[in-house]
């Protein structure tokens, strides 16, 4: 008999007892475990993306939703945004607000304090030096940073030790805390890992990160793999996630059904219809911030200095809105998942609740057009001064859902005497810049259908409508491609941008929304749903109301049944 530790009985009887107890515990565990839904640690999953990110750091590269999200798993911002739209501290101890002195009365000084013990994935502590480094990186022309909003408004950052800093802004920038400390364009880059390297190369393979997962490999055209970051608290459940590029939609659904994929990220409504009834899959569908909308050109596509011959008449725009049966589209083509839209702020807390969805009413549309002087002609198309009511409708070619919707809408508008001519373009041509003769920004359209949203979690959507933002030869990067110019609308937006006070901003935004709604400057078709389809065995998936984080904002909480 061997000598055991203190107090451990020896002998066959106790041996037997130990075995019995162990067996009993095993049985108990076997009985209980199927009913336990406690997250289990471990496991690896494969999630499909249909477009590959250019880089894995937000500082450079294309802001595509389906791929930008991967950065959420790798980098943690100082503040997070919860589903109610409130700021929640993450790396910082508290959220800076005017009330707690974090934001000064004039809005130009902001104080931040990091939590104790937050670390990078290599064990180095995260300090405000990284914040300063990121700021320098983003504002340095050499880096070629794409998103510098908020960052470029910083005049100075003064550190007080490793964990505290005071930020001085050049001028008041109301969304600063949202945009630059929370949200997608906020995470810091590690100075000790990046310094001295070419940032664009490092951003393809970020060696040191701050999020729940750390980078393993990026095989272009195939996949990106990340694994658990041991220094991130709370620790992620999953061991690793592989984001696999799947370029064919049917193949992706097929792989989901066959079990080759555990999740498909950023899918669309028809995909939910395709997997309905499959017992192994769960479709997560949540209202997102993206809205499918129509831009209505207010300028003549042939000559931008002249007003549009048809669409400058508010009655025509209203008629279009009444003529399209958005509910039928949402119910039938989108499986009833999507909701008819009212404004671009539909799913946010800034939505003007006084506004209601406009129901389809072809009769009213007809009478509005009659009133506007468009009389029904022989071929079923309305005429005025010998000209037909003909409008071109453009969207991204190759997008099946949009192309199908165009055909449906074309027919709906034919009923009210509008001749819709379909003219689609590839995205690189449709959304090309002024310099490149892009369709949208050169105003070479009557109606463009696209999906757009407010920028990040901040509700400002003035860039669509400011007179000063009208795209022209003098202002080729203006975003107001429709050429909308409404002094009252300008006023409402100016009011909204000038204050950090939430109540005041809300009032101004309500006014802005109402003006756009009444004037029908844009037609909002439906609120796009954020959709993720996953295997039943994958749990913990939660939607973030943040349009960029979407599904990958909490990858640390995902877990998979073994």
């Amino acid at each position, binding site marked *: 008999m061997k000598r055991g530790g203190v107090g451990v009985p020896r002998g066959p009887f106790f041996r037997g007892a130990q075995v019995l107890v162990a067996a009993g515990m095993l049985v108990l565990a076997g009985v209980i475990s199927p009913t336990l839904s406690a997250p289990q640690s471990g496991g690896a999953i494969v999630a499909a993306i249909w477009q590959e990110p250019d880089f894995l750091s937000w500082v450079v590269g294309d802001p595509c939703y389906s791929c930008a999200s991967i950065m959420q798993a790798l980098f943690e911002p100082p503040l997070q945004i919860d589903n109610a739209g409130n700021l929640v501290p993450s790396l910082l101890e508290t959220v800076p607000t005017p009330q707690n002195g974090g934001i000064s009365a004039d809005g130009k000084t902001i104080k931040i304090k990091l939590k104790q013990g937050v670390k990078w994935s290599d064990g180095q502590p995260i300090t405000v030096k990284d914040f300063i480094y990121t700021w320098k990186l983003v504002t340095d022309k050499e880096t070629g940073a794409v998103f510098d909003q908020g960052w470029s408004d910083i005049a100075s950052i003064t550190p007080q030790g490793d964990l505290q800093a005071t930020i001085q802004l050049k001028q008041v920038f109301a969304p600063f805390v949202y945009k630059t400390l929370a949200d997608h364009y906020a995470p810091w880059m590690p100075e000790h890992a990046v310094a001295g390297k070419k940032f664009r190369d490092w951003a393809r393979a970020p060696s040191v990160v701050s999020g729940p997962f750390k980078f393993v490999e990026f095989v272009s055209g195939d996949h990106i793999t990340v694994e658990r970051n041991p220094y991130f608290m709370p620790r992620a459940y999953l061991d690793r996630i592989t984001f696999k590029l799947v370029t064919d*939609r049917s193949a992706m659904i097929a792989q989901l059904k066959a079990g080759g994929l555990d999740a498909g990220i950023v899918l669309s409504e028809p995909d939910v219809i*395709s997997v309905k009834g499959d017992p192994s899959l769960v479709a997560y569908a949540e209202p997102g911030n993206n809205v499918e909308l129509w831009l209505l050109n207010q300028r003549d596509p042939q000559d931008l200095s002249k007003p549009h011959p048809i669409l400058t008449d508010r009655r025509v725009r209203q008629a279009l809105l009444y003529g399209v049966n958005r509910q039928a589209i949402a119910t*039938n083509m989108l499986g009833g998942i999507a909701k008819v839209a009212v404004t671009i702020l539909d799913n946010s807390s800034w939505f003007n609740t006084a506004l209601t969805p406009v129901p389809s009413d072809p009769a009213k549309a007809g009478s509005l057009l009659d009133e506007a002087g468009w009389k029904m002609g022989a071929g079923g198309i309305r005429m005025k001064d010998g000209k037909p009511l003909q409008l071109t409708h453009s969207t991204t070619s190759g997008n099946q859902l949009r192309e199908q919707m*165009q055909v449906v809408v074309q027919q709906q508008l034919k009923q009210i005497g509008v001749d819709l001519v379909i003219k689609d373009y590839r995205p690189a041509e449709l959304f090309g810049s002024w310099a490149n003769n892009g369709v949208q920004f050169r105003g070479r359209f009557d109606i463009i259908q696209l999906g757009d949203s407010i920028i990040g979690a901040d509700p400002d959507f003035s860039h669509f409508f400011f007179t000063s933002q009208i795209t022209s030869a003098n202002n080729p990067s203006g975003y107001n491609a429709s050429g909308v110019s409404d002094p009252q609308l300008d006023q409402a937006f100016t009011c909204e941008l000038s204050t950090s006070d939430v109540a005041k901003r809300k009032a101004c935004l309500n006014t802005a929304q109402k003006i756009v709604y009444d004037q029908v400057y844009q037609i909002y078709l439906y609120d796009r749903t954020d959709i993720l389809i996953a295997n039943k065995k994958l749990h913990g998936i939660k939607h973030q109301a943040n349009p960029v984080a979407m599904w990958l904002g909490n990858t640390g909480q995902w877990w998979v049944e073994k």
Partner: protein
Amino acid sequence: MKGTAAASAHSPGGRAPDPSAIGQASGAYQTWSAKTWRRFRHHALGLLGLAMLAAIVASVGIGTAVIPERAAFFTDLGALRQPPSFTHLMGTDEVGRDVAARLLFAGQISLTVGFLVAFMGVAVGTLAGVVAGYFGGHLIDTLIMRAADVLLSIPQLVSLICLASLLGPGLRTTILVIAGLSWMEIARLVRANVLRLRETEFVHSAKAVGCSSGRLLLRHLIPNTLAPVTVAATLTVGNAILTETALSYLGLGIQPPTPSWGNMLFNAQIAIFEAPWIGLFPGIMIMVTVLAINFIGEGIRDAIDPRRLVAPLGGWPGQVRPALADDSPASTQGPYG
């Protein structure tokens, strides 16, 4: 040498050669085509293909005349993805249009693409090939062949996107692009034949006798080149239809709402799991049409060159080995798609 040439100028019928017919394919030129037609009529596969194609063209032609266009374009949101029934023989598609009616109107477009592309490809290709072959070795030959190389080097996708930007997307651009990439094979084919013919004994001997090379070439060119070019032409039709399908898959095909079999197939993808019939019918139509055209090509090829069925003695005068020239289809789909 001359003796051999005369001896091999046998027609399969075995008649003694008529001296004035030296260098001609078999017998007098006029009866050659009659013989060819007779052989074609006995070729089961070719006839089958002809019948199939006739049926398809007839149904498309009659169908599109009889059925109102509206039927193919009318979307019915209440009747999405219906399975085949009495009201909709082939069911409805992803926006509620009747698949059968749409199939017929799409046939118009797809067949137009196929035949126009083949016509243009053959016209340009034959011209280029004849010129290049006749002047083989000279500058113009080089220019033409290298121009073909240039066009072949640019990925088809890039060419299509570029042309679509310049001319606007749609039917015309699609036809131009596919045709622009089909002529090279035919040109190469024709050129190879012309080069061969230039060097045949009978051309040499005829020249020695005093015939002008141009007229001679033309009289021999037609029977000898007609076969492979016709075959290549029929294959081009099929390939054009298939290429249009591939382009639709990449989102660069015929624009909505105009239907084509290719874009019907592409749009059917979105509902492939819950309504597979939407893609089934256009797919079958494409296959049947291309099959029919290929059968016809096969029939023509065997009719013109029956040695494949009957073991001849000797061979065509000056006929040289590479059957490869007879057989190279203009594979603009890429040889493997």
